């Protein structure tokens, strides 16, 4: 089986810390939801076959916005929202998409994250992968360790 015949997800884990300077909660909910929507749509327009799961939690001292997106049109579902003005926040975002290479995915993510105003620090989290020959570790960099699913 060649790598072209396999269908494995591409994964990016991003950590963001920033400050929205007291943005109203409704606006912050909309801003971050739009970011995830744009990443989903951007991945699809860059050739991705399917959104596996794009999900993120944005946490403040007293609140959490939890966003999930699995739709190609970028429709999001919110598990919880901000109810207070948003100043400093921290976020962990998992972007898991099928049929797109990592560099293209990163271009889409970087472009979408630029739209978040205010000071922010963005870190792409590196995972070490594993050494197990029976691995299904989605973060593993060795394609021979991946869970293989044929493209249909």
């Amino acid at each position: 089986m060649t790598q072209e015949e396999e269908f494995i997800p591409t994964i990016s884990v991003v950590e963001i810390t920033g400050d929205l300077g007291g943005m109203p909660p409704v606006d912050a909910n909309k801003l971050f939801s739009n970011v995830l929507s744009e990443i989903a749509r951007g991945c699809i327009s860059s050739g991705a076959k399917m959104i596996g799961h794009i999900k993120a939690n944005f946490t403040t001292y007293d609140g959490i916005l939890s966003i999930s997106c699995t739709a190609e049109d970028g429709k999001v579902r919110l598990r919880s929202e901000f109810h207070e003005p948003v100043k400093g926040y921290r976020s962990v975002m998992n972007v898991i998409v099928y049929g797109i290479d990592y560099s293209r995915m990163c271009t889409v993510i970087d472009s979408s994250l630029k739209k978040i105003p205010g000071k922010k620090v963005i870190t792409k989290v590196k995972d070490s992968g594993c050494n197990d020959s029976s691995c299904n570790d989605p973060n593993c960099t060795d394609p021979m360790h991946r869970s293989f699913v044929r493209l249909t």
Partner: protein
Amino acid sequence: MHLIIVSGMLGVGKTSVILKIVGPLAEGGRKLVIIENDFGALGVDSDIIRRNGMEVRELKGGCICCTLKAGLIDDLRLLQANFEPDVAIVEPTGIADPEFIINSVQDISGLRIDSITTLIVIDAERFLKMKKMFERPLKNQLKVADIVLLNKVDAVSSKDLNEIEQGLRTFSYDGKIWHVQADKGIGLDDVVREIIK
């Protein structure tokens, strides 16, 4: 200890199901633990569960059906010895094969599992596409399913629901298909009653 494995493909709503079933499961004083197998070194699902007031044990950076199998067994042993839970809920990643998990926790010295319930969550909105792309993993998951939850049923028409149910039957699953909306908790009380029956 009753082990509940909440499995399913990526983004089907596994964490949403867990968030809604833990309350009813804990009724009557049952002690619960949740083991969360997140992608990557920084997890998202465990964070939201923790923010909902629950303690979560995380297994990160690998998959508990293979690379972190030993970690899962160690955690279950440790939790059983220290906490004596009545129920342990395990959420694997969306690529895990639940059969590997079931096999790996049985007949392990120092670990007493009285019963295992495998919940497979299916995304109604994307099932027809997933069925074409992920036939093998879906088949593997449904093979070991005790309970199949068809989630996000509000997002599809009744005609599509029929087609989805017929699609599920092609994987040789002949049990009941429970229609739920996990993010709103709709349909999950009956599922909990079925689990604890």
